[in-house]
């Protein structure tokens, strides 16, 4: 029969070993020796008492905890769960990206519709950029998305880069399916990034 396992030595120390294994323990010198070691260590640990703090200590401890707790607020669980994705630090990059993307889209559409006057010497160059609809791999697009990810919304507003919500709505309604798809991918990427 096999020797006692660690679990069984613990059970033996607690007097909870089953009859078959108890019979082995009584017959096996090696297991008896190990069980005696365990019992001896347990006895040494049990013999150690604990210094009792002063009776005044408990009142002081309660008072200190009361003071610390008075500075705390309990947020209901449902609110904590619902608000988690909307914490300001998570929203800032998303909002920045949305604002900058909006600004780019509106500017592009305004250029395409000829609402913005451009000096003739730059008109050809600018129109070429607008007609290309800012493909993902363009240098300008990479620069803008990179700046959007790193620019807090407050800084974007301060720099006059924000656009009214109504302008964004109008611009989105005039977007081509490809432009909508690109915008959707950009927003999803930003939302995924902010959720990490």
């Amino acid at each position, binding site marked *: 029969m096999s020797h006692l396992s660690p679990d069984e030595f613990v*059970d033996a120390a607690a007097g909870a070993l089953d009859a078959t294994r108890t019979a082995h323990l009584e017959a096996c010198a090696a297991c008896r020796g190990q069980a005696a070691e*365990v019992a001896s*260590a347990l006895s040494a640990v049990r*013999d150690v008492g*604990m*210094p009792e703090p002063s009776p005044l200590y408990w009142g002081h*401890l309660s008072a200190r*905890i009361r003071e610390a707790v008075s500075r705390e607020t309990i947020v209901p669980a449902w609110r904590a769960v619902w608000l988690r994705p909307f914490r300001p630090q998570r929203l800032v990059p998303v909002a920045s990206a949305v604002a900058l993307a909006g600004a780019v889209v509106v500017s592009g559409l305004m250029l395409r519709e000829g609402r913005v006057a451009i000096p003739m010497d730059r008109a050809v160059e600018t129109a070429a950029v607008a007609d290309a609809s800012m493909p993902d791999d363009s240098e300008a697009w990479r620069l803008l998305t990179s700046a959007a990810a790193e620019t807090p919304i407050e800084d974007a507003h301060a720099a006059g880069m924000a656009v009214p919500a109504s302008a964004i709505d109008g611009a989105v309604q005039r977007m081509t399916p490809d432009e909508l798809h690109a915008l959707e991918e950009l927003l999803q990427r930003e939302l995924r990034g902010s959720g990490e």
Partner: protein
Amino acid sequence: MLTTRTLSWTAKESGCKVTVVNETDAELVQACLEGRREAFDTIVERHQRQVYQLCYRFAGNHEDANDCVQEVFIRAYRGLKTFKARASLGTWLYRIGVNVCLNKVSAKSRVEALDPLIAASDERTASRDESASEALLRGERAAQVRAAIARLPKKQRATLVLRVYHDLPHDEIAGILGSSVGAVKANFFHALNNLKKLLT
């Protein structure tokens, strides 16, 4: 730990008004969540001794234990909304206590070097008939055991403290430590084996 309806008395300074607090732990938690901050005072008064003992056994000195106890109750207050009423508040506090102690109490934590004579007078088994030399030996032995416990790996130390000093069953310890009953028993066995080696 108190898990059933109990009576405790609180003397209010103003007019020495005495109030009976006979709410269960679950009722006190609910009261806290409804904004009755004083209900948490009762929870603290009810459980602070057990939490202190747990922290002291881990830390081995009063200062660190004191810091840990405060941290345990602050974390408990912040997390009250996550407490499930079907569980024992005491066990939940033990779980927080073990986590706080495992994080805050390092292996280098100073184990209170008690004067053996003073330590001997603190031991619960010291008897009046014990001679001075016997008391001295008992105190020295207790200091050695405390130091040895402080040197155990964290999970072994947690298992040993909860099993021996708080008399918790293996399954409850498993719940607190997030492990299986088998792992708890194995940890307990290895803790005792390591102690034996450290003490010889």
